[in-house]
């Protein structure tokens, strides 16, 4: 393995968050009945021509700026000609010669080190329709059905330089890319709904050499993890081919999730896209002022936010990294912090209970019913000693599922902590009376016997006794009796 180095470049297609398609007024809403969001333009009907959605230019510029790209002040659209049943016009309108954004970069963290990945270009293009295969897969189906609802959806394609060297780096790149695009609000970046899709160009070369090996293009990955696994598989496959004295064939390969392998998609034709300037659309000229305006609308990006969490709020790097990996988490954190000033304890609760519950329920934070102010309220109750940490975990789960306020839950479930000294003194006296052996052990020097006694007090109060107070009072009482 270490005789070879993997070289990976990613092409990421991201659907932009607009109400309407790139060149027509059809809705971009996901998950509708097939072919109900189509018109002569996005169906490619003879004679229909489209007009560019202004919002797309704004969102693409914003994305380009957030990825540290230069923005083309004079760009246009081109036609990329090829035949496929999901492509209604027989060409895709894209930006081949002059992308709206180019020469950018983003920084990723892998194994504690920061690495810069350069971005070649980000260009605007239209999505094709969707093929539904009758037999489930493209290879086994006798026929297929085409749904053009997705046809004409606005995309940006973000192309990285071939500068990553492992599946892990690729995954880190995608996570960072997703965090940035989500943060600036240009896309839903949901891989499962297809609003973010990734193709990987993979090649290997002997360590120490600089010329690129023959690459394959890997498609069909539907999660960041499968991108990582597909790349890892493909790298090993290519190394095996070379070690066996074979040659890697330049081809497109599909990731078979079930079998965990990449398979050749065997395209017989060497494509020649015959690109030329789209004559039915006009060029786009952007002024520096306008670009500056877009730049000003970009909120704090994940990296800056992470830095702030570390420097201003004293969070550990790791916590800050996790919280800023998702816009929802970061916003939740900030909102909670406004009402409860202890950053570390908020971070503990987010990274502990909140993430655990999200994973267990397989949910997005937006779907959970808990709010930042209710979490802050809970943390205040813990601080005041009104509830124990242990009970708070139960409460937070109810807040998460049902969205009630913590004090209400505590009241309903009778979970409030007993901190009344009179009440506790009575219970302590009862426990001491019932357990003379443990008391004797303690007084004979077996200090750990106190644990048993505390446990009995907790049992008697159904866990509601204030543990700190119980400890102090119990020690005092035992000392008194000795």
């Amino acid at each position: 393995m270490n005789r070879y180095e993997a070289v990976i470049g990613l092409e990421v297609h991201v659907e932009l968050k607009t109400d309407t398609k790139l060149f027509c007024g059809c809705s971009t809403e996901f998950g509708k009945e097939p072919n109900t969001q189509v018109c002569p333009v996005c169906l490619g009907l003879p004679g229909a021509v489209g007009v560019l959605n202004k919002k797309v230019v704004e969102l693409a510029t914003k994305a380009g700026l957030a990825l540290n790209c230069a923005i083309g002040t004079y760009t246009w659209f081109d036609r990329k000609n090829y035949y496929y049943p999901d492509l209604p016009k027989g060409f895709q309108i894209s930006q081949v010669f002059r992308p709206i954004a180019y020469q950018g970069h983003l920084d990723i963290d892998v194994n504690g080190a920061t690495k810069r990945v350069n971005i070649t270009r980000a260009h605007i293009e239209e999505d094709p329709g969707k093929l539904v295969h009758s037999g489930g897969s493209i290879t086994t189906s006798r026929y297929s059905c085409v749904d053009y609802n997705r046809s004409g959806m606005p995309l940006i394609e973000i192309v990285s330089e071939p500068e990553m060297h492992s599946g892990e780096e690729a995954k880190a790149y995608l996570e960072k890319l997703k965090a940035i695009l989500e943060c600036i609000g240009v896309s839903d970046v949901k891989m499962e709904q297809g609003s973010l899709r990734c193709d990987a160009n993979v090649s290997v070369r002997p360590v120490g050499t600089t010329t690129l090996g023959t690459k394959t293009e890997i498609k069909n990955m539907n999660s960041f993890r499968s991108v990582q696994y597909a790349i890892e598989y493909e790298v090993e496959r290519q190394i095996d081919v070379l070690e066996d004295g074979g040659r890697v064939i330049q081809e497109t390969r599909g990731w078979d999730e079930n079998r965990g392998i990449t398979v050749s998609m065997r395209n017989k034709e060497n494509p020649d896209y015959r690109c030329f300037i789209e004559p039915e659309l006009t060029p786009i000229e952007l002024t520096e002022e306008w670009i500056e305006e877009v730049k000003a609308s970009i909120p704090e990006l994940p990296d800056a936010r992470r830095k702030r969490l570390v420097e201003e709020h004293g969070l550990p790097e790791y916590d800050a990294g996790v919280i800023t990996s998702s816009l929802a988490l970061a916003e939740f954190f900030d909102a909670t912090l406004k009402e409860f000033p202890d950053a570390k304890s908020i971070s503990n609760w987010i990274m502990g209970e909140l993430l655990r519950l999200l994973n267990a329920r397989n949910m997005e934070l937006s779907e959970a019913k808990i709010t930042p102010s209710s979490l802050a309220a809970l943390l205040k109750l813990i601080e005041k000693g009104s509830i124990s940490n242990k009970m708070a975990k139960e409460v937070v789960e109810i807040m998460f599922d049902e969205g009630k306020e913590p004090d209400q839950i505590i009241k309903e479930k009778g979970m409030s902590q007993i901190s009344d000294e009179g009440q506790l003194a009575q219970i302590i006296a009862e426990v001491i009376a019932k357990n003379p052996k443990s008391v004797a052990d303690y007084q004979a020097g077996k200090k750990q016997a106190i644990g048993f006694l505390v446990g009995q007090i907790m049992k008697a109060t159904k866990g509601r006794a204030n543990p700190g107070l119980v400890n102090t009072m119990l020690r005092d009482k035992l000392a008194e009796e000795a």
Partner: protein
Amino acid sequence: MKITEQNVEQVALFSRLELTEEDKAVYTESLNTILDYLDMLDKLDTNNIEPAAHVLSFKNVFREDKLQSSLAKELVLVNAPEEEAGCFKVPRIV
């Protein structure tokens, strides 16, 4: 520049056209007649001339991101050669 029968075969594939052997010979000849004629452009020096892809210099023609009604359901498939479950049906892909 001449075009060979092999070129014509390739061009036909890119154009998704099926040519018989006879067609191939005929189109090779007629395309070469045209290409010979087009070669007269070689006489003209066009260095430093900007290519004009568009006729007029319009730019920044946009529309607002506003919803417009899509085609009525019964019109979408009205011309479909074959349909199934609201979709355009095509024979197998591979």
